């Protein structure tokens, strides 16, 4: 067999890890013959010697769900960690996980923050910022791998203890010395199931409140104070951890970049709907496009909604799916994959010429590119968006405009998103492309400001809206895990991992705000354990919103609104009278606008929203004159 060959035994799939081994199918026990050997060894020995590995059904299935053999032998030994509360989130379960998959990493608390910012736990040698050498932990001594322990370790005052789940393959492939293993590959943050802080800290909440870097997502629910008397000024890292030279694997380094790109896409895309609620009257935690992309990544069984739109080819191309691309998409991919600190004008000019030529040399397109290169981005994208043939060129222009990695582009792009883009669909493509360009690490952990939120959704305005993943649902962990698989293992298949994380990680209930009911409809739903809040302004809400923009405090029979509502509001009015003029009866009334709003909120008057909306608009026009 050559390396990578698959064979089956007793219904289990195995894979050869070296060239030249032979599977002796007839022998009941000694069935694997190593290269050049006459004697065969057992499956167990072959596994131990690293000749083969067991392929589990779906990525990391055994890790979180299927009972490991050692577990069954040892009984159900579990750790239980009390979790602190997170504002707005209530922990409903305790963490439970099997001991033999769990490893412990004492790391400098700054390094832990760097891991969270990256969404990846990685050996120090892959640290682009070159910070690692100055961290005070075992990883600095052994930068080419992740040093993990089978049991909790003593912590220095400035360290935390990360509790990390590994899958059997990772355990098998790691080098081990006693109770220490050296994992040479990065591990996704989805495997982080606990963070212990030194026992000297009085309160978890106060400790966590000190983690204030804007790019660090802090999963508060994972923190706990170490149970052992486990902080000391001297631990024995220095004596026990062998100092190794650092050598980065270019394949892994490339995979880290890919993972950062994939995570960036999903994180930047997730809030798209929130930026457009003023335009659409619709607010949801995740746009449909997010789940349609998830469906492609995770498989249909993981996201069962059938009404999702087809994902845009651009987003799939950014995620390295094999899709048919246009010249503009190719140009966007070139820019996204460049690791340059910003995109130079000449590079854009060159790609613009290609797009112009390959899309039929349209004068409008040339003119818009010229406007863009002269610094007038906003005029250029308006032109690009007007024509179907150039809609993708608008995304290209946005990438150029916000390409400065040293700037605050990842924030400022959102300031005028709702003005710059005529539709949320277009804006989503911009966000996905920029998310890929900046990468996950560069993004903020949460929104600093939400621009253009519909006034009726003000009840949500004080919420802290996450951008990066805070590990609050199994769905999120599953998504991270699968993006990791795509980046590091290049697997392109429909992942059957809906049950992957099972009950091994905490589950949450996000508090649902009390809604201004008649004004907002609630169609909140779940995707697996992920709560997706979804609110829409009702016709009554739209009317009230419109009424508020009309700069009058009272309504009378002279206005269109007054005429339409006269029969319903007459007896609620502050002033009303019946008079006769030239023998004709006439009704006069004047009612406070706020009173009308209250009547609508209380459902005490009925109306046809379309007619009333029309009447208000007419009045706004008339009274503006």
């Amino acid at each position, binding site marked *: 067999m050559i390396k990578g060959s698959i064979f089956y035994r007793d219904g289990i799939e195995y894979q050869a890890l070296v060239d030249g081994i032979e599977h002796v199918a007839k022998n009941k026990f000694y069935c694997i013959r190593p290269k050049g050997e006459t004697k065969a060894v057992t499956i167990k020995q072959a596994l131990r010697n690293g000749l083969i590995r067991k392929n589990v059904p779906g990525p990391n299935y055994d890790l979180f769900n299927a009972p490991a053999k050692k577990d069954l032998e040892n009984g159900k030994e579990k750790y239980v960690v009390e979790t602190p509360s997170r504002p707005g989130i209530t922990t409903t379960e305790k963490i439970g996980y099997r001991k033999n998959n769990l490893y412990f990493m004492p790391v400098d608390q700054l390094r832990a923050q760097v891991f969270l910012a990256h969404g990846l736990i990685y050996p120090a040698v892959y640290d682009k910022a070159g910070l690692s050498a100055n961290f005070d932990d075992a990883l600095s001594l052994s930068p080419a791998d992740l040093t993990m322990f089978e049991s909790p370790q003593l912590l220095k005052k400035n360290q935390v203890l990360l509790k990390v789940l590994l899958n059997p393959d990772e355990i098998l492939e790691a080098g081990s010395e006693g109770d220490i293993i050296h994992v040479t590959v990065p591990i996704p943050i989805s495997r982080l199931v606990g963070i212990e802080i030194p026992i000297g800290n009085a309160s978890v909440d106060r400790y966590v409140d000190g983690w204030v870097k804007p790019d660090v997502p802090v999963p508060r629910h994972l923190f706990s104070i170490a149970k052992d008397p486990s902080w000391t000024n001297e631990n024995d890292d220095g004596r026990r951890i062998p100092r190794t030279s650092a050598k980065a694997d270019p394949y892994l380094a490339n995979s880290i970049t890919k993972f950062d790109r994939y995570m960036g896409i999903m994180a930047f895309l997730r809030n798209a709907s929130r930026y457009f609620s003023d335009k659409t009257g619709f607010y949801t935690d995740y746009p449909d496009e997010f789940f349609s992309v998830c469906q492609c990544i995770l498989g249909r069984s993981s996201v069962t909604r059938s009404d999702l739109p087809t994902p845009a080819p651009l987003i799939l191309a950014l995620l390295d799916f094999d899709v048919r691309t246009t010249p503009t998409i190719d140009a966007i991919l070139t820019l996204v994959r460049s690791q340059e600190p910003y995109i130079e004008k000449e590079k854009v000019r060159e790609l613009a010429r290609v797009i112009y030529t390959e899309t039929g040399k349209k004068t409008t397109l040339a003119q818009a590119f010229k406007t863009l290169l002269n610094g007038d981005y*906003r005029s250029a994208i308006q032109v690009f968006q007007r024509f179907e043939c150039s809609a993708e060129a608008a995304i290209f222009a946005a990438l150029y405009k916000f390409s400065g990695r040293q700037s605050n582009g990842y924030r400022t792009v959102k300031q005028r998103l709702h003005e710059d883009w005529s539709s949320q669909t277009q804006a989503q493509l911009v966000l996905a492309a920029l998310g890929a360009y900046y990468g996950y690490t560069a993004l903020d952990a949460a929104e600093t400001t939400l621009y253009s939120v519909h006034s009726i959704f003000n009840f949500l305005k004080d919420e802290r809206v996450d951008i990066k993943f805070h590990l609050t649902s199994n769905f999120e962990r599953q998504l991270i895990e699968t993006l990791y698989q795509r980046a590091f293992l290049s697997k392109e298949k429909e992942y059957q991992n809906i049950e992957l994380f099972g009950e091994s990680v905490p589950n949450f209930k996000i508090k649902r705000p009390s809604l201004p009911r008649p004004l907002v409809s609630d169609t909140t739903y779940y995707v697996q354990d992920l709560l997706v809040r979804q609110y829409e302004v009702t016709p009554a809400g739209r009317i009230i919103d419109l009424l508020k923009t009309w700069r009058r405090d009272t309504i009378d029979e002279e206005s269109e609104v007054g005429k339409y509502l006269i029969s319903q509001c007459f007896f609620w009015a502050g002033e009303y009278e019946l008079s006769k003029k030239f023998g004709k009866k006439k009704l006069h009334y004047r009612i406070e606008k706020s009173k009308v709003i209250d009547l609508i909120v209380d459902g005490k008057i009925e109306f046809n929203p379309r007619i009333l909306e029309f009447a208000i608009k007419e009045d706004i026009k008339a009274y503006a004159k």
Partner: protein
Amino acid sequence: MRATPDGIEMLRMIDDDNFRGALVTGCPGSGKTTVSIYRLVRLNNQAHKVRLVTYQNMLVLAIQNLANVQRVPAHRVSTFHRWYCRLIDGGFDTDSPPTAQEMVTALDDKDLANQDMVELLIDEGQDLPPCVYDVLPRYFQRIFVGADNGQQVHPCHGAQMEQIEQSLRSRSNQYRRFTLGRNFRNTYETYRFARQFIPKTNRVAWDEAILERLLHANRRGPIPTVVTYQNVESRNAHLQVTLQNAEGNVAILCPLGPLPRNFNHSGESVDEVHRLIENMGFSVSKYHSQADVPRELHRYVVTTFKSAKGMEFDTVIIPRINFFKEISKEWFVACTRARNQLFVYRDLSVPQCDPIEEFEIDTFDSQPAETHITLTEDDISF
């Protein structure tokens, strides 16, 4: 301040509480203010009594805006004068500061010692007189000062770093000194352009190591745009488009505050430019030493070169770089406020001081103001 690309020394400074007095020094843009802001955010989050004071009104507003995003109440940030004068119900004259004993008496009267203040953060500490450092440490558990002799606004009455250090040291042996060595604000392109305003004899500004460090840290960005104009109308038309396309916080910087009596050059005065930009339909704040301090800062701010000191903006626009006299340091300060993009308008119509005339040609992108208005339908060469 981010956990990933910034220096570890900055990250450590935010979390370190093992001192009674600390002094952080470093070049412009090295992150002294940023460290103070994040210490403020952390300590406020952890429910400690903490206060940040600085010297300039504009900087207070900018810090309040930044801290507000992290839910720090605005009242935790103020100018030193505002805080101190309110506290003692009296005054503080920087030109003729009180003696240490007078300060102690005033503060003891107000029982500051029993207010359980955990930390006082002083930004731009070089602009406050030495008596401040002799006295205030005794009222706080910790005092954290950011200072740089090279950035003193009023050398005659400010404290030198060495004086600050001596005062903090004499108070407690739990003293820490941090030094920040890298410029985190500017890109290589902006700094390379801006240093040309300073004579080459100035070794600090012309230290090649600064550019090397910026290159090494990959702090790169678009080269500054110099827009040349012959008449003010075309400049204004271009300026309007630039403002419409400017991202993030935008500073429009002028050498003068109020409109001078013998006014004849548009773009020199804050008052005139503010009016101009307001008439273009932008919501814009203005500040100079003779104007009221705005209550809040809009995204667009018009202010003087001097008032912008210590601040940073995503985009900086200088509506007229020419001036009747050489103001090298101010030009340099104005240009180095830019984090990302810098636009400089250069008036070619008046034979007045033109500092850009001798600049290296590859350090900026020169563009005539008329570009935006001369595009024609059939012009497709791009």
